[in-house]
């Protein structure tokens, strides 16, 4: 039987991926484990292996390298010697490929209506009971890829619930990234709005709070670190690293802000994994620093540097982009004071760091030169109320102003 080679889902939230290049050619015999092609998703490139033995057949209508396609799109087939192409692949030859975005080559892509044979809307081949469809919607399960256990192959409720359970188990056993401390039913009103959509980020209700913090003490500590570590090979923690650390500690005390969507519900995570936004030529990438509160500032600094280098060298693994519970973005180096950072679904909040600027400040009734910085917290109002968000931001400001509060922890 012909085996379909499809665009794989490399992360829970991955909807599309870019076929970078084929590493085997049309007509090659391949064995399980042979690397067939590379896929770029969330800015990381990953090699995809064959799962079956066979002769690789890349149909003429397969998306060309460089194309971004939906997860599940058939890219090629593995056939036995002499085996013909499956019927749907032959039919598909006359249809334009399912292409989400076609960079550059878009002028050559056939336009609907001008193609030799226009695409016919076909009846969906997968049957699903109305109840199973409803439950899939409620649990956020993509049912199109499920195998139905009904008499006629129909997807029924038990298939959807099994898939949801399997996803939940897979997520908690293979990626013990966040441990729930509280679940939806115990949450106050806004937590109850938990109807995820197929692209839940579309439902985000972002609200931003800003606060100015006196960063003089933090700047002083940073200067001391530069001085004392100058002679060592050790990477000197940046001002940014200090903020990641103190922010991680503040999140421990404000778990409501440190919340993620999982399997259709909101979970306040007790583990703090912070995604750091890094600018690259092709866009923003946010590698994740795990367990921020338990790491020393020095090891945190090393890790941030290493991940940043990987980002620029496009060596990040998909794992290193997954599981964040909160995001920090820093636009201070561009001279920005305040901005609205983007929430990275399934997270619920993000902190934006502005520039540190020396201004006249008032202390004990005396005007003095002080360093100030503006902190911008954007949060999903469906998940977090204004009060808890404001208290979190206030804690962060306090930690910036009085580093001794957390440095000794």
């Amino acid at each position, binding site marked *: 039987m012909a085996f379909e080679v499809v665009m794989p889902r490399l992360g829970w939230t991955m909807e599309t991926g870019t076929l970078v290049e084929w590493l085997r050619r049309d007509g090659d015999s391949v064995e399980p484990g042979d690397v067939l092609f590379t896929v770029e998703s969330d800015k990381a490139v990953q090699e995809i292996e064959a799962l079956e033995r066979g002769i690789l057949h890349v149909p003429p209508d397969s998306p060309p390298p460089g194309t971004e396609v939906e997860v599940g799109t058939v890219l090629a087939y593995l056939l036995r010697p002499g085996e013909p192409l499956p019927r749907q692949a032959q039919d598909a030859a006359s249809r334009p490929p399912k292409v989400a975005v076609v960079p550059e080559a878009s002028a050559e892509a056939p336009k609907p209506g001008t193609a030799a044979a226009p695409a016919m809307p076909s009846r969906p081949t997968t049957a699903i009971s109305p109840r199973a469809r409803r439950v899939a919607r409620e649990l956020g399960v993509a049912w199109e890829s499920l195998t139905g256990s009904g008499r006629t192959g*129909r997807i029924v409720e038990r298939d959807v619930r099994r898939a949801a359970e399997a996803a939940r188990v897979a997520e908690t056993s293979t990626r013990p990234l966040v441990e729930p401390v509280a679940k939806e039913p115990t949450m106050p009103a806004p937590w109850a709005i938990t109807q995820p959509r197929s692209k839940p980020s579309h439902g985000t209700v972002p609200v931003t709070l800003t606060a100015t913090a006196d960063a003089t003490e933090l700047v002083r500590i940073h200067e001391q670190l530069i001085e004392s570590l100058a002679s060592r090979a050790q990477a000197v923690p940046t001002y940014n690293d200090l903020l990641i650390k103190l922010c991680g500690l503040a999140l421990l005390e404000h778990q409501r802000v440190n919340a993620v969507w999982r399997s259709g519900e909101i979970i306040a995570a007790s583990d703090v994994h912070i995604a750091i936004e890094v600018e690259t030529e092709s866009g923003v990438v946010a590698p994740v620093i795990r367990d921020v509160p338990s790491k020393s500032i020095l090891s945190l600094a090393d890790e941030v540097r290493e991940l940043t280098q990987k980002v620029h060298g496009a060596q990040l693994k998909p794992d290193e982009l997954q599981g964040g519970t909160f995001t920090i973005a820093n636009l201070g180096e561009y001279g920005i004071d305040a901005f609205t950072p983007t929430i990275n679904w399934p997270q619920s909040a993000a902190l934006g760091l502005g520039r540190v600027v020396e201004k006249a400040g008032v202390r004990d009734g005396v005007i003095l030169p002080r360093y100030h910085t503006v902190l911008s917290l954007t949060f999903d109002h469906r998940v977090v109320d204004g009060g808890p968000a404001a208290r979190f931001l206030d804690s962060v400001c306090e930690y910036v102003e009085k580093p001794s509060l957390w440095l000794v922890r």
Partner: protein
Amino acid sequence: MREMTFTDAAREGLAEEMAQNPGIFVMGEGVGTRGGNFNTTVGLYDLYGPKRLRDTPICERGFTGLCTGAAMVGAHPVVDFMFIDFELDAIGELFNQTSRIQYMSSGRLQMPILVRGSIGIFGSAGPHHSGNYYPLFMHVPGFRVVVPTTPADAKGLIKTALRSTDPVIFLEHKGLLFSKGPVPEGELLVPFGKASITREGTDVTVVAVALMVQKTLEAAKQLEQEGVSCEVIDPRTLAPLDVDTIRDSVHKTGRLLIVDEDWGPCGIGAEIAARIVDEAFDDLDAPISRLNGAFAPTPYSPSLTAGMVPNAQTIAQAIRDLLAE
């Protein structure tokens, strides 16, 4: 609690209402000194005499029309058809007059009349004495259609019927007449339009009518051994029909089977299926399934009859098939 047969319980209800309401009288073939072909009026002739227990010749259309007229002027007649099949000879009177008088008089006339008769395939009664016919009455606006399955419900529903100002068709399955069950002492009224969940379950909803409730409970017991949890619903009244209870059950189970020994086409199963698709489409995990008696006249032969109607085995199999959908 005391145990009574279905027939005794229904007769107790009739007697209690006759004692309270002097406007109630019974008319039909053999309802007087004979006490009714199915013992529906045993003992009542001695209490109330020929004025309130009026034997008739075989003239269904005539006495049905007579009772309709009596109801129009304030009496509360009980038309005892013995076999509901005999109502077919009075159908013009029932459909054209009895069901419509309230409408045609803009509500100035009421139609408090109870039409009762035995239904069902039982005891080799043959083609002329085995009809069910409830869909016929459900189809016509104006009738209440009552199908009790337990002695307590027989008493409670006949008493409610005898206090109604609408025409009520009261149908008693021959296979249930001598079944026994607990009947509480004292006043007992069972409301119309309220189904009874006779067994609670989680895997499949089975709505059963008349004798099929008992057969379905037997099947549910068998299936329990196989780990299948059946919810069995007895609608008790088909008009008004308690769709809410069925819908709530389907919301829980996702699967619905209607078991009815009557013929399938345009039957109670078709009606329930259509209403549930309307109201609970997104709750359905499988197509709605019906199990009916064979679409043929009822034979005399006991061995042929046995193959005509659903039994515990065929019901259990229908449930297994539905769970595999």
